[in-house]
């Protein structure tokens, strides 16, 4: 009974529909686990226990009555602290929004709620999604459930750890340069970044508007497809969201990859990858070949410029998006200031952490008079070249496979002092955001360090709106590898 939190969504749904278990039992198991690990791992900034159990009871009653229920009825899900849920505190793990209560719910939250999902709490993250380790949170770092002396990755480290530690059956995160895929890799769970425009960003606190996407952390690929099916598709409130020609249908994920052409970009296998990580990724590629796929070495020639382009474009958009935090309409307002100017500078200076201020300044500089052409404009042109690389590659192959992260989970504090070293964690993930293509990270094994196994992630990318191909290859690999072994703490 008390192991119900270890189920995945597919398994839980079978038992709920058969009324073998109740949503209350399932939710209680998750909440009990969340409570027991949270003081050590700092996964959740807030647990919504009373409300979650109330919702669970409602779903159970509706099921007993024979009412029609949504696709995710009774499934406990966690939300990253940058997704608005009406009436609930939401802070982007920043001091500047401490006590702020969401005035409306994000579209993805509304859709999950309509499908019957139970929200268990909001998860820790790097402040305003800026970081690759969750150490930039104003509320303390999250620890990796596989080894609490290490980071879970970031910026959605809390959501990744929440699923890895079996405190919920799925969690939502956001991915601007790898913030779902990288922590998924470091925490041994499945992390999915949809095509740009597939999922509405309404109600996601904006970081970089041309790069952000919301996506799920799950224990299996099929679960990810199921969540995507609920949250995807156009939304009149997000003009960058698109009417999909075909929506995601989990049961129709074709079950084999014979003849599928998979490209291995050679630029993703040069310096910087830990040898043990590379070996596991190479083994996985061999496995894909044994499963019938055709493996081809390809080139994405401008890969080396991806991180640089990202760290010009993203901070520029960040500097614009975070201008709204000025102490006027919401958020922290500095006291004892002598002028409006000082109200702005002190509210922002005191409310934002170091990384947020660094990136705002970087972006401001890159957009300022005299520098716009050399920085922002040039980076956006390089971005065109990067997007073209993917377009060319997908003329010859159906999907790409790469490592997700060059290393396994690193120690807390190891990279914190040097921003640039931290940025290198995203080297394999940023290009997908720049080009707008979908990406998924699935576990492909572990590497032992100091006697503890640490997960490694395998990344698949597909063309725009090619999620069905991406899920297909990820699912087949996962089943063959039996790799949905998430940590029970």
């Amino acid at each position, binding site marked *: 009974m008390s192991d119900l939190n270890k189920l995945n969504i597919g398994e839980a749904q079978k038992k709920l529909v058969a009324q073998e278990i109740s949503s209350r039992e399932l939710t209680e198991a998750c909440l009990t686990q969340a409570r027991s690990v949270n003081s050590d791992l700092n996964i959740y900034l807030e647990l919504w226990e009373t409300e979650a159990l109330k919702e669970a009871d409602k779903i159970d009653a509706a099921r007993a009555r024979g009412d029609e229920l949504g696709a995710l009825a009774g499934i406990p899900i966690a939300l990253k602290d940058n997704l608005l849920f009406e009436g609930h505190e939401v802070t982007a793990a920043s001091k500047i929004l401490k006590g*702020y209560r969401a005035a409306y719910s994000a579209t993805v939250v509304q859709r999950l709620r309509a499908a019957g999902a139970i929200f268990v709490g909001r998860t820790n993250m790097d402040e305003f999604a800026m970081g690759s380790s969750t150490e930039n949170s104003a509320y303390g770092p999250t620890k990796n459930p596989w080894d609490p002396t290490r980071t879970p990755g970031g910026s959605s480290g809390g959501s990744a750890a929440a699923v890895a530690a079996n405190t919920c059956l799925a969690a939502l995160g956001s991915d601007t340069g790898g913030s779902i895929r990288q922590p998924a890799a470091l925490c041994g769970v499945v992390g999915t970044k949809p095509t740009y425009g597939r999922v509405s960003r309404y109600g996601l606190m904006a970081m970089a508007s041309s790069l952000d996407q919301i996506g799920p952390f799950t224990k299996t690929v099929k679960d990810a497809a199921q969540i995507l099916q609920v949250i995807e598709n156009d939304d*009149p409130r997000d003009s960058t969201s698109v009417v999909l020609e075909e929506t995601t249908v989990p049961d129709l994920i074709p079950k084999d990859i014979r003849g599928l052409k998979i490209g291995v970009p050679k630029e993703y296998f040069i310096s910087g990858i830990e040898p043990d990580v590379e070996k596991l990724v190479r083994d996985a590629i061999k496995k894909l070949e044994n499963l019938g796929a055709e493996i081809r070495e390809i080139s994405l020639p401008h890969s080396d410029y991806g991180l*640089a382009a990202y760290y010009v474009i993203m901070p520029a958009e960040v500097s614009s998006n975070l201008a709204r935090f000025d102490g006027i309409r919401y958020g922290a307002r500095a006291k004892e200031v002598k002028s409006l100017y000082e109200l702005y500078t002190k509210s922002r200076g005191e409310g934002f952490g170091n990384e947020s201020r660094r990136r705002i*300044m970087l972006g401001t500089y890159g957009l300022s008079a005299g520098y716009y052409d050399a920085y922002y404009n040039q980076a956006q*042109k390089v971005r*065109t070249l990067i997007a073209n690389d993917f377009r060319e590659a997908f003329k010859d192959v159906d999907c790409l496979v790469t490592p997700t992260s060059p290393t396994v989970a690193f120690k807390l504090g190891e990279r914190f002092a040097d921003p640039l070293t931290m940025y290198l964690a995203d080297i394999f993930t940023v290009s997908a955001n720049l080009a707008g293509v979908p990406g998924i990270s699935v576990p492909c094994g572990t590497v032992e360090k100091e006697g503890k196994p640490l997960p490694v992630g395998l990344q698949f990318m597909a063309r725009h709106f090619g999620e069905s191909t991406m899920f297909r290859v990820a699912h087949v690999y996962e089943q063959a590898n039996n790799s949905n072994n998430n940590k029970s703490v």
Partner: protein
Amino acid sequence: MAQLSRDEVEHIAALARLHLTEEEKNVFGTQLSSILDYVAKLQTVDTSAVKPLDHVLDVKNVTRNDEVKPYGATSRTLIIENFPGQTGDLLSVPAVFEQTTENF
């Protein structure tokens, strides 16, 4: 080596309306300089034949009719409750035209 001067750091901070302590001006200046150094590699790319990428997808302007739609009553209440300063239903702010110390 792109080394930001102290003046430049102060100028950027002013543009971004960010207060920095003297210590932070030093530390951030060094850190930002090293990041700018890294992104300078973008200058080596020949972009003469390309345009900036304005949108990753092939979508055009999305428009709708200019119709007023009522906003939720709960949302309105929450918005007002989030005001850092409040007088009734109104957002209260410091008077703008009093005591400015702007000097740039």
